[in-house]
């Protein structure tokens, strides 16, 4: 299929971009990597009056990550994230999940900001950003604001962004030293049936700053706050892990689709939350 007609706008600054978005009053779409938008255009599932191509805006692809976290420009491509030594050193979970995203061609184009704005319910990037406690800096004609990712993601393909807002960067606090990530797919790097990401820091015998997130079990990636609280400060004993598994399952409400049934997803959630936490206890995953 061929896309329905639309106008093409190529701003050279964020200000120009958000002005264009505002002018189209919600009928324009931002084109970043295009890996989700263009298929929707081609299949006529989306018919914006205008496409605002932000790829030529300078300064949106800066990676500034260090031991205290930092920021990643919204237009940074997955392939750049994947190859960044700074990210591997300080946000290893991000490097790991990037390898599970799409294929090489998609990673060459897809962007971190685009992924968060797309809010795919099983997207790896929203999940990792939730687990890492990230927030996004968004800009509109009326100024900028910072939105924590857990407040950004409202539902499948649904965010709290206003139609004239553009994500300009993603901000990360100091990353915990440990992480574990599990993903189940029907084929190589397919959309996840289920994914679990957990981060924490080891402090003496205990684990602190535990953040457990899962996708594939709700309308959007979820932060399992009760489970995280159950684990906070503990040594992740088997009993504590079991309690966290139950607390996670309590907030899960998956649905059936062509990839898996809801029932199987709950089962996988139990298994993979447990396994991820066991691996975290044993020192966590490595890039």
């Amino acid at each position, binding site marked *: 299929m*061929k896309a329905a*007609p639309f106008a093409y706008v190529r701003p050279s600054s964020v200000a120009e971009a958000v002005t264009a978005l505002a002018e189209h009053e919600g009928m324009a779409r931002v084109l970043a990597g295009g890996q989700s938008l263009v*298929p929707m255009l081609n*299949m006529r599932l989306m018919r914006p009056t205008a496409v605002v191509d932000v790829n030529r805006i300078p300064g949106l692809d800066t990676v500034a990550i260090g031991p205290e976290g930092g920021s990643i420009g919204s237009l940074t491509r997955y392939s750049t994230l994947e190859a960044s030594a700074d990210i591997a050193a300080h946000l290893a979970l991000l490097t790991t999940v990037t390898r599970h995203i799409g294929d090489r061609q998609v990673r060459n184009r897809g962007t971190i900001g685009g992924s968060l704005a797309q809010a795919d319910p099983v997207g790896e990037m929203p999940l990792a950003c939730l687990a890492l406690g990230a927030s996004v800096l968004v800009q509109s004609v009326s100024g900028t604001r910072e939105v924590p990712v857990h407040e950004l993601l409202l539902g499948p393909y649904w965010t709290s962004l206003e139609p004239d807002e553009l994500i300009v960067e993603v901000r990360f606090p100091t990353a915990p030293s440990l992480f574990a990530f599990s993903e*189940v797919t029907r*084929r190589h790097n*397919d*959309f996840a049936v289920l994914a679990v990401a957990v981060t924490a820091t080891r402090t003496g015998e205990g684990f602190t700053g535990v953040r457990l997130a899962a996708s594939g079990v709700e309308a959007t990636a979820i932060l399992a706050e009760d489970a995280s609280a159950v684990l906070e400060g503990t040594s992740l004993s088997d009993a504590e892990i079991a309690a966290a598994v139950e607390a996670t399952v309590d907030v899960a409400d998956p649905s059936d*689709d062509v990839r898996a049934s809801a029932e*199987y997803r709950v089962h996988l959630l139990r298994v993979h939350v447990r396994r991820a936490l066991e691996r975290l206890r044993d020192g966590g995953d490595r890039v």
Partner: protein
Amino acid sequence: MVDLLHRHTAAGTGLGVSLPRVEDDRLLRGEGRFVDDLHPFQALHMAVLRCPFPRAQVVSIDISAALELTGVEQILVGSQVAERSEPISVLRPVPGAPDLPFFALATDVAHFEGQPVVSVVAQSRAIAEDALDLIDVEFDPLPHVSDVVSAMEPDAPLLHPNELATNRLVTNNQERGNPDGELAASAVVASDRFFVNRVTALPMEGRAVVAEWRQGARELIVQHSTQTPHLVRKQLAEALRLDEGSIRVLTDDVGGGFGMKLGIYPEDVLACLHALELGRPVKWVEDRTEHFRASTHARESVHDASIGATADGRFTAMTNAYATDLGALNSPFGSAQLTSITFGGPYNVEHIRTERLVTVTSKTPIGAYRGYGQPESNFVREVLIDRIARQLGRDPLDLRLQNLLRPEDLPWTNHTGAILDSGDYAATLRMATERVGYDALRAAGRGPRADGRLTGVGLSCFIERTGYPSARFLANRGSQFGAHEGVTLRANRSGGIDLITGVSSFGQSSETTFAQLLSEVTGIDAGLVRVHTGDTGASPVNTGGFASRTTIAAAGAIELAGLEFVGKALRIAAWLLEIDDPTSLAVRGTDIGPRDSDGPTVPLADVFSTAILGQGIPPSEAPGLEATAYYEPQAAAYAFGSAAAVVAVDPETGDFTIERFVMVHDCGVPVNPMLVEGQVLGALAQGFGAALMEELRYDPDTGQLLNGSLLDYFAPTAADLPHVELLHTEVPSPVTPLGVRGVGEIGTIPPGAAIVNAVCDALSDPQIELSRLPVTPEAVWRALADAAAKGGRA
């Protein structure tokens, strides 16, 4: 037993040599010529509005707004198409079934999601699609049926009330001996209901057509992506009420077919109708969204099957009553027809019955697809054999070896009259199990490995019918095509031979293998042969590329034509060389000279030029050097083999990986071992896809396709398939020219059963039964849960 890939020792370019493909260079350079690559001057583009419901009354159609869109040239609706064309004919009807006639556009009731309802031709494809958005069709959804089981329920909506009293199209029964009595008297019987998934062939190039009508010439030129140019011509002539002489079908490169591109589809008729009326070329290229709904699907059947055995393990009887889906309407080849023929497989079983029930549903029509019923029968039979083994406490390998037909049992006529021609079936099974290290795997402890996984090994023995057993066989089934191939050989002045065939090039490498066959027969270097494919205006009327039959039938035609051609060439050469006995001559490289000694030679180019010019030829010879021959095989050749899969299962999640897959197969004498291996590997990948991942899923309530895109239909990627270890035996078939057997489909057959048997072996719990394809991690987890509920493994 030869490892074919290492048989490069033969000199020359004939049989058994892994010649590089002549097709490759153009394709590697991006110079293939697929239909969408053609840009005829002033071409127009067609788009099709399709029924969005599984079944609906077409109440009204308003095209007024679309007609006003700039760039729109013509719009057709069902009533116009019904006036101007005939219903689309069927090439391979289901034996004994009534007609279910339909036109290229739905006229009254649309019978499936994706059926064409309106066609638009415009200046560009995008404008044609813009016009579709402006067409207002009022559909009144009708009750639908979404699977073969519910189709037969007493309260099922009647889908074709004018033609059928129920949703059963026909039942075909075949029986030998006393299977029911034998089953009743058997010491053990394994029985179950098996479900085989609906899949799709999924060639990477969808369907495509460009039609151009030259009024003054009264010629419709149809460039078409098909495996059967001559059959397309026949069907188009019937549908369009044209003489066949007014239609020329041209097929250049085809981006895969796998059985899906046999004969015509509604869009072909539509493009031609538009072209006939507009006098301009009309192009239609299927997009992937259309493809998933409007190109034929495949498989989907439900089997109630049983196998009985004596206490000492001899198979007593097999039965398989199965319902197979036709979909909403007939496609050119309809539903799979080889399940019954191959259900007995390579085993010695006297008492056997197959009952085939063909149902209609409200889904996309089923068509031919690589395997065509054989993966289904193999899955059912081989899984049941392992269950017999478990019941008897026997090793599945021993049990199979005990029951396989021995070479001296062949030829073996099975309950359908099919004749298994020759082969050493047990030898392939021994080779497969030796290669995989079967005994060690079976002897290994049953406990989990360090990674928590359980390993298992599973077997699958198979046969494949390749080619058709004569035109008589087809006539008995009402098939509208023959079993033959025809070729024309024509000398050219450069000393080369033009080989003209109606076969098209869709990846099966016929251009290379036909040249090799001619080289084998005549001694002429394959490099001197130029194969011209897919032009109905130039080629002898043939059958086409499907049913693993092309090489078999073409080998005979090439042999006959080649002998005639070279005989005349030698006679002319003898005349030129002033030698009395032409039989003392032979083709040697680019010359003709004495067969067994040195002596004067004459270049082929001189012989061919002399013949073409007709000056200086023997007085008894007619000018020209050309031979046309047809060949019809009188029996099918049965390819065969065995596979062994090793899996590692995570018993907690059901996830499993295929750690090894060994396949031993026999395709008789291989024409080109490299290409044989390529065919087997490619078919295996489709076999793995259908066994593990692929399934077209429908919402039972809405009747709509849930995964009609490449994002949700799980075709395997390079990272999803196991490494395959491929071995061969080479038993020449006594019933085919040169001893070849077909090879195109065999790989689709064994994966499902071998993998299921391996998973069950890994889990080593007799309560665990996997009876459904695809076998997914979730399916394994469910089977484990069900077994636990039945009191098996905790």
